[in-house]
């Protein structure tokens, strides 16, 4: 996994609440059996018309947000389906982080496994960042996972909470399967006293 330490980048505002994973990556693109190549389909129905032509009004198509690597969005981001394709698509499109006042649980878990940061800030802080991204040209933010802090050049500074172990894995780009397997002895002991049911073992 790609480590996440400190990232500075352009900010794009997606001023909607409850952005669900069906919007982030519509189902017709879930049939690929690879983890790569999903970026071209991110927010597909919002970005492209039914004729396949770019929707120039969609925020990510405004030239001023080109190359944005930080998305600011309304509450309950990533709700709905468990599809990790949503995170793969955002990351493949070039985003390293999403800032919102709340995230759906599965989306937050999936983010952490992909070196992608889901940054929770307060409603007021998100509203401020949304406004700055809309009003200031080439608005940039720094997301500092070492200090658990988001800051800009205009005096904005806010701390964000993150579970310590998740932070540790992100900072070091750790594969958590490897970490779990460090407990091989405990897993084996648990399995010795909790064998798979007989009905499942017989085929």
């Amino acid at each position, binding site marked *: 996994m790609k480590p996440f330490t400190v990232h500075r980048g352009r900010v794009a505002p997606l*001023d*909607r*609440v*409850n952005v*669900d994973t*069906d*919007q982030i990556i*519509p*189902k*017709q693109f*879930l*049939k*690929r*059996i*690879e*983890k790569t190549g999903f970026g071209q389909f991110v927010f597909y*129905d919002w970005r492209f018309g*039914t004729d396949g032509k770019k929707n120039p009004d969609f925020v990510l198509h405004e030239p001023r947000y080109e190359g944005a690597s930080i998305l600011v969005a*309304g*509450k*309950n981001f990533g*709700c*709905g*389906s*468990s*599809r*990790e*394709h949503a*995170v793969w698509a955002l990351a493949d499109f070039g985003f390293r982080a999403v800032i919102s006042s*709340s*995230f*759906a*649980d*599965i989306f937050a*878990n*999936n983010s952490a*496994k*992909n070196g992608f940061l889901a940054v929770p800030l307060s409603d007021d802080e998100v509203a401020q960042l949304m406004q700055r991204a809309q009003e200031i040209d080439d608005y940039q933010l720094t997301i500092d996972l070492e200090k658990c802090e988001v800051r800009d050049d205009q005096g904005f500074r806010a701390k964000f909470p993150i*579970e310590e*172990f*998740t932070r*540790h894995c992100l900072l070091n780009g750790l594969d*958590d*399967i490897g*970490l*779990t*397997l460090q*407990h091989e002895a*405990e*897993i084996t002991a*648990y*399995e010795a006293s*909790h064998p*798979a*049911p*007989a*009905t*499942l*073992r017989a*085929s």
Partner: protein
Amino acid sequence: MKTMAVARTLFEKIWEAHLVAQPAGRSPILYIDLHLVHEVTSPQAFDGLRAAGRNVRQPARTVATVDHNIPTEPRGTPITDLIAAKQIAALQSNCKEFGIRLFDMDSPEQGIVHVIGPELGLTQPGMTIVCGDSHTSTHGAFGALAFGIGTSEVEHVLATQCLAQQRPKTMKIDVRGRLAEGVTAKDLALGIIGQIGTDGATGHVIEYAGPAVRALSMEGRMTLCNMSIEAGARAGMVAPDETTIAYVKGKRFAPSGAEWEKAVAYWRSLPSDDGAEFDEVVEIDAAQLCPFVTWGTNPGMVAPVTGRVPEVKGLEESDRRAAELALQYMGLEPGLRIEDIGIDRVFIGSCTNSRLEDLRAAARVARGHHVNAKVRAMVVPGSQTVKRAAEQEGLHRIFQDAGFEWRESGCSMCLGMNPDILQPGERCASTSNRNFEGRQGRGGRTHLVSPMMAAAAAIAGHFTDIRNWKYQ
């Protein structure tokens, strides 16, 4: 001196019984009893295993089926979507390579993963169950801790049979009183989400309790727990009782003989202790509930069938804008009576409402009537087992005589990954779980309802209060 054991919730009992390790400064490691696998969220996980040279640790605890993108045309019809066919083939070869039991396309027990788990007796009280699908919460109906995971976590469970998980908070939803005739588990779920919102239970495991929940059948409890994720919950649960035990008994993978007695004794110890504390408690009065219809683009946007599309003026800024966008997408105006909303399509199916009881309820409504001339209606049983049972009772005849299509089992138009989709602008009464933009097909407009309400809408051509239905 009398020592008192600490009163624990159902969730706490299962959580603590599955802790393998609690490393300092890290998330606890939880053992997973049953891992259900389907074609869409698993191929990258199997690739990950191969790339790291890892094996499936417990093939016996891993069970697979194909459901999300298979056609519901008669079996044997070739799959014309080549990318879907490739995904199905990938699951077949992965199951073969790693020795995993697969209920394949041609299996008499194939079906939606959350329908076949319970009906095969794979799902049992007290278990930890995961699947790369958010509606895994369904299995909580048995008093199991069951939750959806992403593909990285699918790989983690394949490799270790464990998950590193932060402990969620607990929420009790206490449903007082009884549901009235015509008000179903689906309406209870929609009523709850309408009240607490689509993020009302984020970070929590819900335990549904109270007389109205106790009175539900296993099918009803599955519908209720299924929709927990639509309130943002990590999982939903109902404590096991005699209804649960009677359902599991004799199922193909259920314990038998002395093992059965032992299992039942354990299951009876699982319900939350008196005085056990929850992080949050929500009370619902069942008598206040009615048949609901969603009017917007998330499952929290609900209205009573007797009501109107709501005014958005009074709402707080971000919610108002969300409601305006939803109404624009749905092609609806505030103040419109719900019963005046006409429909083009009806979908009866999905892991929420495609079990035998759901089909019986819909068939009772459809019997002797005919689908409105402008409506196309389809019934998609949740599994081959459900389909056979329904056919033995003649339900397929009732549906077909009434003009409904009777199809093969799968997820179908719940998420439209297969050819069953809405056309742009088409309006659908659907028994599924999500009314998100484009969920059932780009530009499609989904209204979530119960199976009875869907059947009635198919016949009337618009939503209608099932409590006034003229049964034939």
